[in-house]
């Protein structure tokens, strides 16, 4: 499926960009790619569509509420809808989003192929977000949230989260 480009009304962009993922506060929901559309109708009423990263992502309810309050603060009433299709992929995380993740200490997702090599065949490809060494190993396929796996760096000895590639 080819993901269609999200349709965001230009005047809403800056408002929505201020809302962040509660579990990864440095990452705006716009950079995360979870906002699929935001439109204003003739009565100035806003409808926002968001899509979950994972089916069970507990952050979605909070994100929905945060969107509503950010829009209310800017003078808009809004409805937030959850859409499942097309399904979210890590490709929708923007360049800025990937930078923000890295700076925060979370290794951003590699390509799907590399991800498989790392998670299935134990290859050392994920660079440590602290010291940049790829001398890293997978500790657990599941990390602090459903979207992350736990790694440790064998050089600087720091444990870190890796944002799993989801295609």
């Amino acid at each position: 499926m080819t993901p269609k480009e999200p349709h965001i009304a230009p005047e809403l962009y800056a408002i929505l960009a201020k809302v962040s993922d509660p579990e990864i506060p440095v990452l705006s929901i716009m950079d995360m790619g979870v906002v699929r559309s935001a439109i204003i109708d003739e009565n100035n009423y806003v409808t926002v569509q968001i899509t979950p990263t994972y089916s069970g992502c507990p952050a979605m309810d909070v994100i929905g509420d945060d969107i509503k309050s950010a829009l209310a603060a800017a003078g808009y009433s809004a409805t937030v809808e959850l859409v499942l299709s097309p399904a979210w992929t890590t490709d929708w995380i923007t360049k800025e989003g990937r930078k923000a993740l890295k700076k925060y200490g979370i290794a951003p997702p590699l390509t799907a192929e590399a991800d498989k090599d790392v998670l299935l065949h134990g290859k050392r490809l994920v660079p440590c977000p602290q010291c940049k060494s790829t001398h890293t190993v997978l500790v657990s396929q599941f990390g602090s949230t459903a979207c992350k796996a736990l790694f440790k760096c064998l050089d600087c000895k720091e444990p870190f989260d890796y944002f799993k590639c989801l295609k």
Partner: protein
Amino acid sequence: MKQDLYTYILGIADNNLILGQRLGELCGHGPSLETDIACTNISLDLLGQVRSYYQYAAQLNERLTSEDQIAFMRTEREYLNVLLVEQPNTNFAYTIARQFLYDIFHKLFIQNLQNSTDQTLVAIANKAIKEVSYHQRFSSDWIVRLGDGTDESHEKIQTAIDDLWTYTNELFQLTPNDEQMIKAGKGVNTALFKDTYYAQINSILNEATLATPQSKWFQKGGKEGIHTEHMGYILSDLQYMQRTYPNMEW
């Protein structure tokens, strides 16, 4: 037709709910921090999928009109999950064996559900397939680690596989309602991948130096609401809050 679809959705989703509940029991009690987190993360994925299924089902039913009512307000006979998923976390080998025997089926099922003529089910399946693939990797890896591990881990996982084997065939049982949904193009014809299921299981058990059970005697009943002795205990935990404080919300 609405009622048939409702029943069909429960037949898929109840498996996730009950398995999610079983995995949730391990929260804070897993054998290691990593496996504890893995089991509860898988539980979270399954419950997330359940929410999508039940939200859809709630639009089709007159009595139970919200996801919570469907999850919490039914009697035991109204749950349509297979017997496999309600089996207890006897030890880590049982937890992994149960997960493995379900994950292989779940992935094949979801792959086929992607071709349903029902667009909501397709959307749920497109989302779930990525998660389920990951679960299958996790449980298959552990089957190999335990089977090809120490003498003790080998023996424990073999015992668990042997004991749970009797619940595998029910995954492929088709109720009259299932058959109707298959005819309507919405349901998944599980008969088409039964051989693939057992071949995949066999191949991973081989890799794990484990023997594939040969027993041809299988249990069934869950798909008709007739459950094992464990189900009542699961439901009393699961439903406690809603039964004690009806209509409570978080």
